[in-house]
């Protein structure tokens, strides 16, 4: 699925349950075959919904990972510069500036951003104090 935009077909995708509306009139002895089928389809539908929710749950964690990162997950992070950035495969970014070029989109984790901010605060403090 695209990351920097939403595909229209994803927004309007509606999936039909397998469970069917089998209207019945009880005029004869009850048919266990149809009741078993109903029960099985219902179970399959519940499994599919559970699977969908589990996928969403994992997706949330994966996406959170891009921003929050983890102190010890250097092996998973792209080692583009400092080891705490995530490279998004196939996505580039262009930021308008003289001589700018398109670069691979690299997401800084909160830890890396915090590190950069701490460094900036320190340098401002040095400048303020004439060091």
């Amino acid at each position: 699925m695209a990351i920097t935009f939403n595909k229209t077909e994803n927004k309007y995708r509606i999936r039909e349950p397998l469970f069917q509306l089998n209207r019945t009139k009880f005029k004869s002895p009850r048919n266990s075959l149809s009741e078993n089928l109903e029960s099985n389809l219902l179970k399959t539908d519940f499994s599919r919904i559970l699977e969908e929710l589990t996928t969403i749950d994992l997706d949330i964690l994966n996406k959170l990972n891009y921003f929050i990162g983890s102190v010890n997950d250097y092996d998973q992070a792209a080692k583009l510069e400092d080891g705490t950035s995530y490279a998004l495969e196939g996505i580039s970014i262009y930021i308008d500036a003289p001589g700018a070029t398109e670069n691979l989109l690299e997401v800084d984790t909160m830890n890396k951003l915090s590190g950069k901010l701490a460094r900036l605060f320190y340098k401002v403090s040095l400048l303020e104090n004439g060091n």
Partner: protein
Amino acid sequence: MSDILKTKKRDYKYNGPVDSSDYNSRIEENYQDLVYLYNKSNIVDTKLSDAFERVLKDHAFLSNAINDISDRIKALESESNTLSIHSFSQLDYSSFIGTSFAVSGTELLSFDPTYNIISLPKVSSGSFSKLKFGQPGVGQIVPDYFKAMLSLSFAGVDTNGAIIDSTPMYNAILDSPDKVWKRTVISPSNPITGAQMMLYVRVSPEISGSSKTNAIKLNPFPAFGAEIYSIEYTTNTDPSLSNTDTWIPLNSRGYYDGDVSAIGKVPPGGWSTAGADSVKNSGPLCYQFPSTDITAIRIKFNQKNYFTELGNYIYTYGLSDLDIRYDKFLPAGRTIIKYTPKTGDVIEEITNVTPKIYNVPLSQMGNVFEYRIIYDNGGTYSLDNPGANNHVWIEVTLNVANDTTAPVLSDLIIQYN
């Protein structure tokens, strides 16, 4: 959600003829609910993608803004012919492979971009956390003998009986993006003291068989939104995790007392004026100190920032990461840092090189820090200055201090003509 679902509770007792109309309405209700749940999961999926897209784009440009500010500060420094470390991409040892300045993998100084530190080469096989351990296939484990306590005996809103919304303290120990230790105090008032608490954490020798400790890392939560007032330790056997233990400031030698640029670089709580070294709106902190038999630490938190909602004052503080470690370092190491003046400038000569190391005293600086200036002399790296350099490199050598402290290089500032 229960109001939206159509399926109703039934209480059948088949003692007579069965009514098929009720059976039909039941399966219709089931079907409608399934359609609803399928669509709901799709909507949630789409909402997540929308939210991710928005945050990702804002995040990318905010990151760019931070880089932009960094460039501007660099330009301001250049105005006074000063250069410093702005990015760890300046670590340029790879350009020297095959030359007489080459740095081997074992002697290469370690660096940590989160805590902005360059230190001695770390021996990972002899380095370990005192709070957790990892198990292949299982992940990180906080042992059941992990013990932490909170003291709420301070003035302010965080007292016994206050309305609290919190998560478990061991969330701060586990490195997982969805785990953070936060303590939210919901208060009807906002006294000047804000919220205050003391966190006590026992350092269990069971994990490593030793109490030797030489590093503490902590990331306050919210990032840059809480104050770390002091960090202290005790060596008492079987500490009670209370005021009755003997507590020693981590900066017991009072390093850099009164030097405001050292705030946050030295552990707070060790200066002669109480609170003068407190780290307000603290970012990530890492302290390396001499190997010490520590049985517990305590960290004093203050929170004076708050939100207001529904007539209440909401104070939140905690930790997103905490680690107490023993890190094994080699006694010496080297790295090479590249300095490039602003466009149009050249470096005729380096007039001064100032290391910023705050965990050893100035008297030992000559023992722990050495440097050489490397020039590009017509395509050959050399110690001889050809003049008018577009870049220079500083080869840094760090040595372990007399008291076993691994020096932490926070910055290296050069001045040039």
